[in-house]
């Protein structure tokens, strides 16, 4: 079981149980976070699934690709915790990950 702590744009925090093998973007979208637009459907072609990642397990995430890094430059409010949620594949090892949905750009 992969438990994620998700903070939405209103600041509400909720725990969600994520299925393995899906991306963080799909997991957030399926959990009803409609702030996640993910317009390109997860093909790393836009920056509309921007989140901040936090917590001890955040260091276990795969490092971002150059494309992801470049696309995040298009996101306002980018910081050192920024990721595109479509590029994060979830697994049990990531239980406890804290996610905050980035402000609307």
């Amino acid at each position, binding site marked *: 079981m992969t438990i994620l702590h998700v903070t939405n744009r209103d600041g509400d925090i909720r725990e969600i149980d994520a299925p393995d093998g*899906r991306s963080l973007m*799909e997991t957030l*979208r*399926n959990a*009803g976070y*409609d*702030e996640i*637009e993910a*317009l*390109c*459907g997860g*093909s790393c*072609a*836009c920056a509309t699934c921007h989140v901040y990642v936090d917590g001890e397990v955040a260091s276990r995430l795969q490092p971002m690709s*150059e*494309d992801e890094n*470049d*696309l995040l*430059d*298009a996101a306002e409010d980018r910081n050192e915790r920024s990721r595109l949620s479509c590029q994060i594949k979830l697994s049990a090892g990531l239980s406890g990950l804290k996610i905050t949905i980035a402000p609307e750009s």
Partner: protein
Amino acid sequence: MSKSDHFDVLIIGAGHAGAQTAIALRQQKFEGTIGIVGDETEHPYERPPLSKDYFLGEKTFDRLLIRPESFWRERKVSLMLGHRAVSLDADARTIFLQDGAKIGYGDLVWAAGGRARRLSCPGFDLGGIHYVRTRADVDALLEDAEAATRVAVIGGGYIGLEAAASLSKLGKAVTLFETADRLLARVAGAPISHFYADAHRRRGVAVLTSINIVEVLGEQDRVFAVRSDHHTFPCDLVIVGIGIIPESEVLAKGGAKVENGVWVDAHGATSLPHVYAAGDCAAGESQFADGARLRIESVQNANDTATSVASSIMGAPRPYAATPWFWSNQFDLKLQTVGLCTGHDEAVVRGDPETESFSVIYLKQGRVIALDCVNNVKDYVQGRKLVELGLSPALSAIVDSDIPLKNLLPPTA
């Protein structure tokens, strides 16, 4: 539907624009009733993967859903799927469906998209001819493609090229036919056209331009060749990607101003009261085309025009001013577009197309109006500001790929 219904907001079309209208209304705390009529039977889904990930079996259909099925129930959005709107009485604020049912509305959002333009030449109705617009189209195509070995793709636009790439990856011998003298003639500049023709050929697709397919030949109701004026090309499957026709007849008959799409103002309002339009079928004036009225067929446009319509319905109108962007994946080539290249007078190549990572910058009287970036996310991201600010950097700086595009921005940008 057997009984007469009424929704405060009735949305016709369950694609990207229709779905986003409902999502945005609920996000903006709209408390009235919302109904969506869609002529397909599926819940709202993403169309772009139909020619790519879904086509290749890399993504199952449930992963294409714009929102999970439960979302629509939880947000109290009534989906009326498998139904088609056939007429509009704007005075009575009523939509009539094909099965005779009628639905009243407070506000109507026309987001019916477009239908694939069909072949009209002799043989157009033979078995083995396919389109790529809906899930049903692609499921039928894939079933038919299993036994096929030689595929003719008619149309060298994005859909034709993406289908050609996918079929080639599935091991088919693919020949692509384009009537114009170059690929993507309607949507991109010549350097992009030539690059994609070469790139497809390098990967085994036969690309033929300036060639008009005048007949599809068959026996026992099944295609066996396509024919131009001078040659016959054997094939056992045909994919047609020759554009879409906007679904606007119902609105035109209902009295709305329609000409290559439903005319809308900056807030998505049509010429009829309480009737809005969004997405592929809506034609608005674009500040990214010097105010020209045009239809844009993209997810970005569907999504952002829908959000704008939702704001109008909420009484807090926000004019549609989003920067156009688009992407197309073919083989290992990722194209990203920002701006609209319509009306460019110069297409400047930045970087070396031979490396398969480069950009084309479109200028109009020296001003940057759009970029096409192939495997070059940096230029795509950094070039966006050049388009939005309408800058006119020196040509020598634009072509020098050692100079990051962000260095061409004024210090305050």
